[in-house]
């Protein structure tokens, strides 16, 4: 029979509870009181030794449960258990149920011969009858009307909150609640007061979502246990903060419209990729696959297989989270954290376990079935926001499914040429787009600096992101339109609008065509000045595209991709082969290879760069290379060896001091000596240059120019560093513009330093591609522009309409502008 010990600060109380429990008519029950301290002057307190004695007194291998009042009673009870022999420890459980009710329920169940789990379960349920009788589960109307009315019930706190964030408790807020709750020992339950739901445990993201909490709904948060007050307080702060949504998007359409100039019939979004698209809209909907309920013989192995897939999915998600925190911001990226919680959801997990262990179903089926069961709840939800969040669950459901089954993600296809409508696209979605049929892309969320945006621009597909939930109004097949340059999306354009858009599209296509035709022309101004239109590439394939797009060479070969998605760095031979092939394809045209540029923001685990507080101000670029010499030297050797197969130069990233370039060059000389000694051929006259992307490099440009073979201005990082503004942070991204006079002055100074020292200077940031900036850059004396290949035709074409002389005439005017608006106005 299960034994029971009653622990209380008060001896009288403990004895009284025992007396009361024995009234239930079970004199044979093993019940012992451990109350108070043996000190006549201070009898109130708890004594672990006394509790230990009581445990020993009632001990049986069936188990013992300890009922406690609170505070030190819990600690003393736990201490007492520590003094037991290991063989006994496991049979003794602490029960969180209320002392009086719990003890009585436990006694009844123990006397009935229940095992320890059943006794615990009964004790835990002991408050139900009392709650039901008093209607305590629902706080009274009065409390609901007062937003902050808290009732204290022993250690239980209940408080009513009104939810004010835009779409209620959807995935991200729910995830935040789950994560926060996990930090406390307290039990947390939440119910939707507005629709009179039952309480659900706050540790389950699915439970929370199915509460259907919408904006302005009232919820009741109940916390109980040791740190219940603190837990309540923390949740209160989270709700007051609108789950961190305040500073982020989910703007009402009206707010957005005031931000951008108003266009009737159009939804304002973020201009991501220029161009006009008109055509039937198709929503990209993902759904769980149909899986046959296969059976298995060995549930243990199957469970292990499932757990491995889950672990892998979590690792992937945490990598995606970290990567996207940097590119799209932590709030946006937190959806991936929410995804990880979906996987851990007790409800789903329990069903998977049962499916595999009891029903002997395959892991694939067990998982899909469990996900579907929760999806069904979502679909039944009254709340549109909840319904629309089903996509997150499907997303994570597919991730695990693909890992289990080995089936790769499916390519996005449209039934006919049209506009792709989606909530948001993952980089892999965008990268595997069916280019033939996708005329344009419109997304509910996303940002213009996300990977998806960059890919859309690279593919030259017009795109508008961040149009909000209005895309739900679009029916499949309905004709829609978007203007990627203005950031406008037309869910159902009228005839006039269509006419207008078609005209713009015609002009756009004409220009694109014109540019395409001009791509093989020389890059030259109207007055015959030869300019280099170079390409930024990351692979040999990119180089082929670049040549097709009319590139005069490669101004930046990013080598990071060679190092990504693998378990160790590529060896010298592998790198050599790649660089040699690149040089060969370029056939004498310039190839500038940049040495590895990584930092704490890029997840390449084997490089041993830890997650840093400030990866952009951390151990990255040449700073890494000069310390991790083996990787650096291997790469330099490979580049040098490839140098004799074409017009190859080498470039060091993130240089900020003279010492860095001296050291990098000294190491290069050592490598050259080694190669000579080994009798390996290379181009001893290879040029070694540096990126100018750190403000320190601009300030010391004159000195650096004496040591560098050339400069290449990386305007993206340079702008962020000069302006101390993160371009992925919406609040300050306006500051992070290369058109800021401070940035323009830095560019000017860099070019002048290069000219004075007689070395070449190029630009390889996004600014180089921006044809609005071309007159300004020409006027400053820039002759080499390196950009993503898709920008080259337009660049060449626009360039051919500019006269260097005209630009130079305006140079002073540009530089006189003291604010960004002035600069932009000058450049049109």
């Amino acid at each position: 029979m299960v034994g029971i010990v009653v622990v209380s600060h008060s001896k009288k109380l403990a004895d009284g509870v025992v007396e009361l429990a024995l009234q239930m008519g079970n004199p044979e029950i093993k019940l012992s009181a451990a109350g108070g301290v043996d000190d006549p002057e201070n009898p109130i307190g708890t004594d672990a030794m006394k509790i230990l004695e009581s445990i020993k007194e009632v001990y049986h291998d069936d188990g013992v449960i300890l009922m406690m009042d609170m505070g030190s009673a819990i600690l003393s009870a736990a201490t007492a258990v520590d003094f037991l022999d290991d063989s006994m420890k496991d049979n003794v459980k602490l029960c969180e149920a209320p002392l009086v009710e719990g003890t009585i329920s436990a006694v009844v169940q123990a006397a009935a011969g229940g095992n320890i789990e059943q006794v615990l379960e009964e004790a835990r349920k002991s408050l139900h009858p009392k709650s039901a009788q008093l209607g305590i589960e629902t706080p009274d109307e009065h409390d609901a009307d007062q937003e902050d009315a808290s009732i204290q019930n022993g250690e239980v706190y209940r408080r009513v909150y009104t939810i004010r964030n835009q779409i209620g408790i959807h995935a991200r807020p729910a995830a935040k609640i789950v994560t926060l709750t996990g930090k406390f020992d307290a039990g947390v339950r939440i119910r939707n007061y507005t629709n009179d739901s039952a309480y659900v445990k706050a540790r389950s993201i699915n439970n929370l979502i199915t509460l259907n909490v919408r904006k302005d709904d009232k919820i009741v948060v109940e916390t109980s246990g040791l740190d219940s007050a603190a837990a309540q307080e923390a949740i209160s702060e989270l709700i007051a903060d609108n789950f961190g949504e305040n500073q982020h998007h989910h703007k009402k359409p009206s707010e957005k419209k005031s931000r951008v100039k108003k266009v009737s019939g159009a939804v304002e979004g973020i201009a991501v990729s220029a161009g006009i698209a008109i055509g039937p809209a198709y929503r990209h909907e993902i759904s769980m696959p149909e899986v046959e309920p296969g059976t298995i013989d060995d549930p243990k192995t199957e469970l292990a297989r499932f757990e491995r897939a889950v672990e892998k999915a979590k690792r992937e998600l945490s990598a995606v989270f970290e990567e996207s925190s940097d590119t799209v911001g932590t709030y946006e990226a937190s959806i991936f954290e929410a995804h990880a919680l979906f996987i851990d959801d007790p409800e789903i997990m329990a069903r998977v376990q049962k499916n595999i262990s009891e029903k002997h179903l395959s892991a694939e089926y067990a998982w899909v079935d469990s996900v579907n069961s929760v999806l069904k709840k979502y679909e039944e939800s009254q709340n549109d926001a909840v319904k629309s969040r089903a996509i997150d669950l499907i997303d994570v459901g597919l991730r695990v499914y693909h890992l289990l089954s080995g089936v790769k993600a499916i390519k996005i296809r449209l039934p006919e040429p049209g506009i792709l409508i989606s909530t948001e696209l993952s980089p892999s979605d965008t990268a595997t787009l069916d280019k033939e049929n996708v005329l344009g892309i419109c997304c509910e969320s996303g940002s213009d600096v996300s990977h998806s945006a960059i890919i859309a621009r690279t593919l030259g597909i017009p795109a508008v992101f961040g149009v909000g939930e209005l895309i739900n109004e679009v029916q499949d097949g309905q004709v829609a339109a978007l203007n990627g340059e203005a950031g406008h999306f037309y869910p159902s354009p009228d005839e006039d609008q269509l006419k207008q858009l078609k005209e713009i599209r015609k002009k756009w296509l004409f220009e694109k065509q014109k540019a395409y035709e001009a791509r093989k022309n020389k890059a030259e101004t109207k007055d015959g000045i030869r300019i280099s239109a170079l390409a930024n590439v990351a692979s040999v394939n990119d180089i082929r595209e670049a040549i097709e797009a009319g590139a005069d060479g490669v101004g930046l070969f990013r080598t990071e991709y060679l190092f990504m998605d693998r378990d160790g760095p590529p060896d010298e031979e592998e790198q050599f082969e790649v660089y040699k092939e690149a040089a060969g394809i370029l056939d004498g045209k310039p190839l500038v290879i940049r040495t590895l540029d990584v930092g704490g923001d890029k997840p390449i685990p084997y490089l041993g760069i830890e997650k840093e507080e400030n990866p952009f101000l951390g151990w990255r670029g040449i700073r890494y290379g000069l310390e991790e010499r083996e990787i650096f030297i291997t790469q330099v050797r490979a580049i040098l060896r490839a140098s004799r197969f074409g017009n190859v130069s080498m470039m060091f990233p993130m240089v900020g001091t003279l010492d860095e370039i001296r050291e990098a060059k000294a190491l290069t000389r050592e490598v050259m000596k080694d190669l000579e000694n080994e009798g390996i051929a290379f181009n001893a006259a290879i040029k070694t240059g540096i990126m100018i992307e750190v403000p320190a490099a601009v300030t010391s440009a004159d000195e650096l120019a004496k040591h560098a073979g050339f400069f290449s201005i990386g305007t993206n990082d340079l702008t962020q560093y000069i302006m101390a503004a993160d371009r992925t942070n919406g609040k300050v991204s306006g500051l992070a513009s290369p058109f800021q006079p401070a940035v323009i002055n830095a560019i000017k100074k860099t070019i002048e330093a290069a000219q004075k020292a007689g070395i070449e200077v190029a630009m390889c940031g996004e600014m180089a591609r921006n044809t609005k900036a071309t007159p300004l850059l020409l006027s400053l004396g820039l002759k080499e522009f390196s950009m993503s290949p898709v920008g080259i035709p337009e660049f060449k074409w626009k360039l051919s309409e500019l006269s260097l002389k005209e630009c130079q005439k305006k140079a002073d005017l540009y530089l006189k502008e003291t604010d960004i608006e002035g600069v932009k106005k000058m450049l049109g």
Partner: protein
Amino acid sequence: MIKKKHILDWLNKSAEVLEEKKSYLTKLDTAIGDADHGNNMNRGFKKVLEQLPTNEKKDIGAILKGVAMSLISTVGGASGPLYGTMFLQAGNSVSGKEELTAEDLKKMLQAGVDGIVMRGKAKIGDKTMIDALEPAVKAYSSAVSAGDELTTALQKAVDAAEKGVEDTIPLIARKGRASYLGERSKGHQDPGATSSYYLLKALRDSVQ
């Protein structure tokens, strides 16, 4: 080197200081707790001294375990099982030893703090004993690793604990009775952190 007599002296000095600071600790506990910390600690250490003669011929580990038992049985409040577990784990870590090197003491202090954390599950910043003890043990460990004398290292530990105690003032309590006060626990020094500081100070005084 810490000899047994130092340990006995430490326990005596601890009892002394807790007697002396009884009202002060209770005053601190009145603000954010249940006004018994001073009395509880005083009573607990009185009992420790009372029972000390039965153990004082044994090794240091056994002495400390005896302290644990006394505290667990007599303190009554949460500090009983917490300090009890601290002395118990500390005792286990130096089991059988008649004297302690600086390195032994490091292990002992760490084991003690780990015991409290295991029992109370508090973290730094929760406004508990841990806010004094954890920085103190860290300071001691790094001082010893850096080659400091034992007394110097202990002084650094005491300094760190003192700062830790001060740092509890603006904190919101996350554990125990004080956590019920939420925001209102701000602005008060934590009594548990304070008594931890006294224990460390007594240790330093005994070893000097």
